[in-house]
C-alpha cells in the first residue's frame, strides 16, 4: 500500500498533465467559464480554478476567492463531465435521397466535430465518478449499447480528487458516493494545504495509473500526508450542507404516488428543466430530424431532453403527464426509486446540483423527507 501512495507538488501536477497529453489523451478538467466551474480542456495547472472556491445553496451559486492557492477547493461544478461523453447534441446519421431511394452514410461520432478521445479526466469528484459509473450501466451495460458513448468513453483515464470543500447543497456522504473516491480511478489525488507545502497525496488505482505516475516526479508519502488526506475527507464528510435518508426510500416513493405533497411541489416548480440538465445521471434524449429545403439531404441528431416538458410523454390524445405534479413525481420517483429497480443503484449521487440550479429553490432532500413524513393514503383503484 505504502508503495502506492506518493505525493506530488504543483510541478508534479503539471507533469502529470503533460504526461497524459503526451500519451495522446485529451485532458479535461474543471475550468472557470462565465462565472461557474465547468469541464474544459486543461493544458496547464493555471487552467484549473486555482484560488477559486464557491458558495452554493438552494437557487444560489457564486464563485468566491479563496485565501489559498487550492486548485480543487470548490464543490460540484455547474456541470459534471457528462457532456464529454454524452454531448447535448450529437449526430446520428446523415443521408441523401435520390428518387425513391436514400442512403444513410454512417459517419461515426467524429463527423460531429465532437472530439472522440481518448480522454483523461482530471480532478473528478467522487460523486461524479459514481455518476459516470451509473451512466456506464445505463448506456453500455444492457442489451443495446449506445455506440457513440462507448466510442468516447473507451479508454478514459481518470484522475480523481477527494472533495475538500463541499457546499451547502452537497449530500454525497449520505448517498454513500463520496467525498473520497473509492473506485473507478487510475489515480486519486487529495489536495493537502496544511502540514507542509501545498501538495497532493496520490493513490494508485490501476497498473495503468502506476505506469503514468512513474513518469512523474513524486516523493514517497509520509505518514503525515496519509493522515492529512484522511482528515480532508473526514472534514468534508462532516461539512455537507444536506442529507438524504435513503432507508426504504423506494417503498416510500412508490407508496406515495398520490401524496398531496406533489401538489405542493407542483405549485412551486416552473418545469424549467434546469434540474435535469445539470444532473450528472440524467440520460433522457430526443431525436431531431432536419432536412434541407429540397428534402433530399437530411440528418438526425440526438439531443438532451427532459421529463419536465409536456411533450416528453406525448402520445395520441395528449401528454401522459400533462400536470407538473406528475412530471415532478416522475423525475424524483425515477431518480430515487425506479432507478433501483432498473439498474440496481440509486439514480442520485448527492451532488446537489439540482438544488443549486433550481430557480424555485426546490430541494430533492427536503421533498424526500416530506414524503417520508406524509402518512400514506389508502390505495385507491
Amino acid at each position, binding site marked *: 500500500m505504502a508503495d502506492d501512495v506518493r505525493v506530488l507538488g504543483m510541478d508534479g501536477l503539471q507533469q502529470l498533465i503533460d504526461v497524459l497529453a503526451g500519451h495522446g489523451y485529451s485532458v479535461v478538467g474543471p475550468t472557470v467559464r462565465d462565472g461557474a466551474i465547468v469541464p474544459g480542456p486543461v493544458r496547464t495547472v493555471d487552467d484549473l480554478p486555482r484560488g477559486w472556491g464557491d458558495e452554493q445553496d438552494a437557487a444560489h451559486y457564486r464563485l468566491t476567492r479563496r485565501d489559498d492557492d487550492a486548485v480543487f477547493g470548490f464543490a460540484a461544478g455547474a456541470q459534471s463531465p457528462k457532456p464529454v461523453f454524452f454531448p447535448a447534441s450529437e449526430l*446520428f*446519421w446523415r*443521408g441523401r*435521397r435520390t428518387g*425513391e*431511394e*436514400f*442512403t*444513410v452514410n*454512417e459517419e*461515426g461520432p467524429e463527423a460531429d466535430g465532437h472530439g472522440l478521445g481518448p480522454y483523461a479526466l482530471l480532478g473528478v469528484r467522487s460523486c461524479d465518478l459514481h455518476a459516470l459509473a451509473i451512466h456506464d450501466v*445505463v*448506456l453500455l451495460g*444492457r*442489451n*443495446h*449499447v*449506445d*455506440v457513440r458513448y*462507448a*466510442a468516447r468513453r*473507451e*479508454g478514459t483515464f481518470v484522475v480523481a480528487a477527494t472533495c475538500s470543500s463541499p457546499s451547502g447543497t452537497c449530500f454525497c456522504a449520505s448517498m454513500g458516493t463520496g467525498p473520497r473516491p473509492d473506485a473507478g480511478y487510475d489515480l486519486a489525488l487529495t489536495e493537502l494545504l496544511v502540514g507542509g507545502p501545498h501538495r497532493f497525496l496520490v493513490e494508485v488505482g490501476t497498473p495503468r495509473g502506476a505506469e503514468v505516475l512513474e513518469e512523474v516526479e513524486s516523493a514517497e508519502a509520509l505518514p503525515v500526508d496519509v493522515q492529512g488526506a484522511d482528515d480532508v475527507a473526514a472534514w468534508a464528510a462532516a461539512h455537507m450542507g444536506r442529507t438524504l435518508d435513503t432507508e426504504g426510500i423506494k417503498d416510500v416513493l*412508490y407508496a406515495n*404516488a*398520490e401524496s398531496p405533497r406533489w401538489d405542493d411541489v407542483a405549485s412551486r416548480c416552473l418545469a424549467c428543466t434546469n434540474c435535469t440538465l445539470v444532473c450528472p445521471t440524467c*440520460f*433522457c*434524449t*430526443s*431525436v431531431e*430530424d432536419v*432536412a434541407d429545403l429540397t428534402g*433530399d439531404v*437530411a440528418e438526425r441528431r*440526438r439531443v438532451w*431532453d427532459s*421529463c419536465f416538458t409536456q411533450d*416528453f*410523454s*406525448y*402520445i*395520441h*390524445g395528449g401528454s*401522459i*403527464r*400533462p*400536470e407538473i*405534479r*406528475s412530471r415532478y413525481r*416522475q423525475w424524483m*420517483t*425515477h431518480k430515487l*426509486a*425506479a432507478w433501483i*429497480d*432498473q439498474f440496481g443503484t440509486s439514480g442520485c449521487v448527492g451532488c446537489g446540483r439540482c438544488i443549486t440550479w433550481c430557480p424555485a429553490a426546490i430541494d430533492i432532500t427536503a421533498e424526500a423527507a416530506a414524503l417520508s413524513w406524509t402518512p400514506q393514503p389508502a*390505495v*385507491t*383503484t
Partner: protein
Amino acid sequence: MSMVDSREPGGSPVAVLDPMLPRRFRIGRTRQDTRDTYTFELEPVEGEPLVYAAGQFTMLDAFGVGEAPISISGNPLALGPVEHTIRDVGVVTHALITAPTGAVLGVRGPFGTSWDVTDAAGGDVVFVAGGIGLAPLRGAILELIAQRDRYERVVLLYGVRTPEDILFGDELRTWAKDNGIVVEVTVDNAQHAWRGRVGLVTQLVPRAGFDARRTTAFVCGPEVMMRYVASALVDRGVRENRIRLSMERNMKCGVGLCGHCQLRELFVCVDGPVLTYDRLAPLLSSREL
C-alpha cells in the same frame, strides 16, 4: 448495417450493432384498409429478411421526416415481406402512408416483447382489440391459426368506433368460418345498415363463453379500454398473470436508451410493449404515471 468497434474494459474488440441506424426496406404491396388506415409490405433492400415475433414493433422512418414506432401486423411464421398497418394521425404516419410503392423506408428493430401465443396452448384464448389495436394482435392470431388444434375455445372480441373502421374485414369472416374462432364485433355508433352489436367491447367480456381458469387473454387498444377490459376479465375469473396487454408510450429510441417510454420502473420499449396485467395493475391505478 454498420458495426462500431468497441472494447470491453481490458478485453478484445467486439463488433457492436448500432441500434440507432436504420436498415433500408422497400415498400411492396399496399392495401387501404379503412378511410385512414393502410397496410403495406416491406422488403429489405439488402441483407436478411426481418425475423420477428408477433407483438414486436419496429421504428419506421420516413426519410427526412422522422420515425414512429409501429407494430408488425404480419404473420411471424411466413418468412416473406414484413407487414405494418398504419393509421394516419400525424406528420410521420402521414409521410409513411403516402409513400408510394417502391419507395424506400428506414427500419430499426424488431424491438420489444411478444405476445407468446404458443404459451396459451392447451387452454382457451381470448383476444380483445380496440380500433387499430387489432393490427398488433393479427400476427398472434395467424400464429395460433397455424396450429389451431393446440388451442381449445378461441374468442376474438373487437370494438371499433363505426362499421367503416373495421380492419381486416375479410379475414375476420375467414377466421370465424374456417378457423373456428368466435368473432364478436361491436361498434360505438352505427348510423347505416349495421345489424351487429352496438356498445363497448368491455360489455362483451362477461358474455363471451370461455373457461376463465384455463384462459389466456391478449388485449390491445387504448389504455382506458385495456384497463376496463382487464378488470372485466379478472372479474370473470381470468388470472392476472394470464392477461397480456400491449402498452403504448412515446418512443424515440426503442431500445431503452432515451427514457421516453418509462412507466415507473418499466421501459415499455424493452420490458414491453407486451406486459402481463399482474405487473401492470398497480401502475395503471395511478393517474399520469
